[in-house]
């Protein structure tokens, strides 16, 4: 097996969004423009493959904002490696993410 997982463009885009700090499912949707039916299963796959990891928000933070606690995702070292490899393949990936964040 190769060391790094090869990602499709869509998967790389989602990983890029999570790597950029948009760690919630809906924020990834907003950044990538992909529907929830694509984003959430893709994040589950990446978590299963060790590219990202999830963590529940602390209850105290959610209580302070009067909403349920959310689950957020962070990119792992393996995910970073895969993302770097993907960015070499998709040069517009980083630019696209930057543009989205600029809006």
């Amino acid at each position, binding site marked *: *097996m*190769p060391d790094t*997982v*090869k*990602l*499709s*463009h*869509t*998967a790389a885009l989602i990983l890029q969004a999570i790597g950029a700090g948009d760690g*919630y*499912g*809906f924020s990834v*949707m907003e950044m990538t423009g992909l*529907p*929830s*039916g*694509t*984003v*959430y*299963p*893709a994040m*589950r*796959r990446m978590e*299963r*493959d060790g590219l990202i990891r999830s963590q529940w928000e602390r209850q105290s933070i*959610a209580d302070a904002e009067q*909403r*349920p*606690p*959310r*689950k957020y995702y962070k990119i792992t070292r393996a995910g970073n490696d895969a993302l770097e490899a993907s960015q070499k*393949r998709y040069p517009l990936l980083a630019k696209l993410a930057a543009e989205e964040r600029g809006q």
Partner: protein
Amino acid sequence: MNWILRLAALIVPADKRAAWLAEWDAELAFVRPRCGNVAALFFCAGAFSDAIWMRRNGELSASAELREIFQVRSPLRCLAWLTVLALSSLGLALRFSSLANAFPPEPYRDSQNLAMVTLHPDGPRYADVPLWKFRAAESRIPDVEEAAFYTHVLGQSPRKPMVVAIASPNLFRMLSVAAPAQGLILARSTWRRLFKSDPTIIGRKVEVDGRYATVTGIISDNAWQLPAFPQAWLLDETRFQALPPNSSGYVVARLRTPAPSNFFWTASTTNSRAEYDRLTFVPIPHESVALVILALFLPGLLALPVLTRYHLGAYPANRHAPPRTVRVRRWFFLATKIALILPTLLCSTCVLGVVPLMPGCLMMSWLLSMRWAWNDQRNRCPVCLHSLSLPVRIGEASHTFLEWYGTELVCTRGHGLLHVPEISTSCYSEQRWLYLDPSWSS
């Protein structure tokens, strides 16, 4: 709108349902005030895809762990599993069922020279020749080199009565069946069922029609391809001569010249009472097993488009396309899969004991297996033959007229990407493979 999420949650494995629902509830609480109810509705609709993914791939679910064990992503592992299946079903078939009986027997060595002889060809059976007529005409039937007679009587096995054919001693010799020249000969199935596979059966006395006969051998059930399957045969000149002259029985004849296939023909002879007898010759079927199997599987292969398409997808060559040998290997892989599926199906059908329904069962399971083989082939990388992974849904239905939408899969070894359109359009009618440059494989 939370009811949609609760409905979708029913699909999620129970051990993960609460956490899954909590995550979607939290997200919905954020989406609704920010984007409105319509967007929230579309958001919730996506929960079903996620829930289905969780059902299929839940880390803690036993089925997922089992699937991981039986994963056939690697082509070698796939072939290894198919080989194991073929060998184990063959072993089971040999152990628990009379595998050989499930298939049409190979014809007699010179079956084109053999024919049944009957006086009433329109009758339901051929057992209509009285013994006295057979004796009178035995050596005088035109174009007949030799003839044999057999009739049924009852014998007594340890468990229940059995049907025994008392035959003229030349019967098996004429049919070129390897069997003792005289004595009581059992069919293998009779020996198994009625005599519980008794290893000391040879030499044992068995009652046949009120007198004892000695068991001298066992023959395969397939050795008998003539009408009326008896459970044993008694070849004994004395007993044969002692049969009442009026006993009706079957007559099989060996002809001097090969019989025309599938045609009845007649000949006349006079009997000992100076009467004319009109004898009808009925040829014995002599189709080969290979032809019968071919007749069974070829229509199945032709009917495959009912379940799936023959086309394996578009693989447009680019400068990164692999050499011809690699592409040939892909077809060899498909052929090997099919070659291993065939014995598995034949043997497992026998093991399941559905021999009377065999043609229908075989045809259906053959069709389903071919569908699997074709679909599996479509979902493999044409270069390394590993199953593709990381499927991601792309686009929406509204993209249909602008670009394709559907699923994208990737070869984890970096050989290419597979685009599978959700619906066929004039631009994307088939799934399409994109070969990637070798740096992906590094």
